């Protein structure tokens, strides 16, 4: 019996969402009185033993150049095999983009019940029940897993990273992955150094900005907070901002610690993608804007005046003015 954590990487680096999965998996292992072990596929440029600080005691590394690109079919087989060889009864992974492709395949392969979008630790007082969210964050469900092996896909930003563990024992796993089922021919990343779906702070703006030429104050605020930028759908549809910034029901769903909405009315379809944010700040000149109902803090005022003042105040506080 053990808890196996699939550790997802990009360009040889462990994703932050996977550090959350490790911390969560370690807590689940402690709860079940067992150990947490990690599985990594493909070349990695960082020290895997150091992942022990998040609570894993061992890391199994399938260090094969053929695994440099994620391939759901190939990776599902490898993780399932690793689950078998480590005797895992619980498999934990982040419900990030790769997790969404991998977890259902693993579930079908191992005939193991899947809790996608998990947001809490298991409750084992009556079987094995894990809370997940659904309805775009408007409801939650407690899901009971009836199979011997359980798969938990943890929502990004739902569990805080914890440190304090000792170095992990890293062992190389010999694998013969064969040819990938999907060949990656090109990768394009948006400019800007903070990835929207992984960001802890997101500064988002809507049609209230009047035009793309006014986005400088939004970007300045984002920079001061080391935040990612986002936008409402009409803004992306009008090509004021790139489509990969569009959040909401038809765009990205995000759950940062802080979401600052500037000149966005707060339509239900917009809220569907952002209402899991921990703290929501709304800046809107209309006191009746529906977004204020979903907000924690707000200023009824003109974005063109308020936003630069916010940037200045933050810089002053951080001592970077």
């Amino acid at each position, binding site marked *: 019996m053990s808890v196996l954590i699939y550790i997802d990487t*990009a360009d040889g680096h462990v994703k932050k969402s996977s550090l959350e999965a490790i911390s969560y998996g370690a807590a689940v292992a402690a709860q079940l009185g067992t150990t947490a072990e990690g599985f990594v596929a493909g070349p990695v440029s960082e020290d895997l033993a150091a992942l022990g600080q998040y609570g894993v005691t061992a890391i199994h590394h399938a260090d094969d150049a053929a695994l440099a690109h994620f391939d*759901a079919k190939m990776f*599902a087989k490898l993780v399932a095999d690793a689950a078998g060889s480590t005797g895992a009864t619980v498999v934990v992974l982040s419900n990030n*983009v790769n997790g*969404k*492709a*991998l*977890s*259902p*395949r693993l*579930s*079908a*392969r191992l*005939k193991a*019940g*899947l*809790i*996608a*979008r998990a947001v809490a630790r298991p409750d084992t007082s009556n079987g094995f029940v894990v809370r997940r*969210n*659904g*309805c*775009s964050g408007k*409801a939650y*469900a407690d*899901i*009971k*897993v*009836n*199979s011997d092996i359980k798969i938990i896909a943890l929502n990004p930003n739902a569990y805080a990273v914890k440190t304090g563990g000792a170095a992990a024992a890293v062992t190389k796993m010999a694998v013969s992955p064969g040819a990938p*089922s*999907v*060949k*990656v021919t*090109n*990768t*394009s990343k*948006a400019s800007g150094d903070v990835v929207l779906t*992984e960001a802890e*702070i997101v500064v988002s703006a809507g049609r209230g900005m009047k035009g793309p030429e006014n986005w400088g104050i939004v970007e300045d605020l984002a920079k001061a*907070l080391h935040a990612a930028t986002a936008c409402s759908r009409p803004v992306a549809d009008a090509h004021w901002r790139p*489509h*990969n910034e569009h959040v909401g*029901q038809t765009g990205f769903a995000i759950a940062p610690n*802080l979401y600052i909405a500037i000149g966005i009315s707060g339509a*239900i379809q917009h809220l*569907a993608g952002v209402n899991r944010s921990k*703290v929501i*700040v709304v800046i809107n000149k209309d006191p009746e804007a529906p977004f*204020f109902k979903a*907000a*924690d*803090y707000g200023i*009824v005022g*003109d974005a063109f005046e*308020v936003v630069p*003042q*916010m940037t200045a*105040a*933050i810089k002053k506080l951080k001592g970077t003015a």
Partner: protein
Amino acid sequence: MKILVCISKTPDTTAKIAFTDNNTKFDANGVQWIINPYDEWYALVRAIELKEADASTVIHLITVGAADTEPIIRKALAGGDEAIRVNLDSQDSFQVASQIAAIAKEGGYDLVLAGKETIDYNGASIGGMVAELLDQPFISLATKLDIAGTTATVNREIEGGEETCEASLPLVISCQKGMSEARIPNMRGIMAARTKPLKVVDPVAADALTSVAGFGLPPAKAGVKLVAPDNVDELVRLLHEEAKAF
């Protein structure tokens, strides 16, 4: 080319969310059901576009559900040639995926298209499960799909960007925004849908791996704390000290 499009029904986005039976069932009272937007706007419309480019393409639709899903699949049929309803009031995603995989295997489809996720359940699970059960490649969260011969070229979402990849048919793809041009089914299509074949088949045996112990609503927000527009420093202080948001 034979395409199977997975169609699910979901409550309209503006539907009120409530539960009955001691919080174990979704309260469907007064709820307006729609075709899951990802299934309709992206998976189905892209299939229609592929058929427009190559008239020999056949589009079949599948839904797993009880008789009450029939109006939804009938509506979607405006864009397909034939529909299959597996008569099962399913308990979990694995049961649904097992039904779709059984139909897909029997029908020998080149492409199975699912939506990115159902907007009520948000599992994003069915496509991957079907692919595994069929032992086929799976490309998730696709934003673009082109077919040339037996090769699919697909763009898919990755954190902070996109990846272009290639795979051989047959395969399973989950679809999202970007896939297709926006369109509304025309009235002729809707009329024709009434007379197109809709087969009802019995489910294959598949155990549910999970069950719902209960539903709930997240605690309501305490209410917004408003700060005066000439006191921006106070907002920043609250965010830093009270909310510990940065």
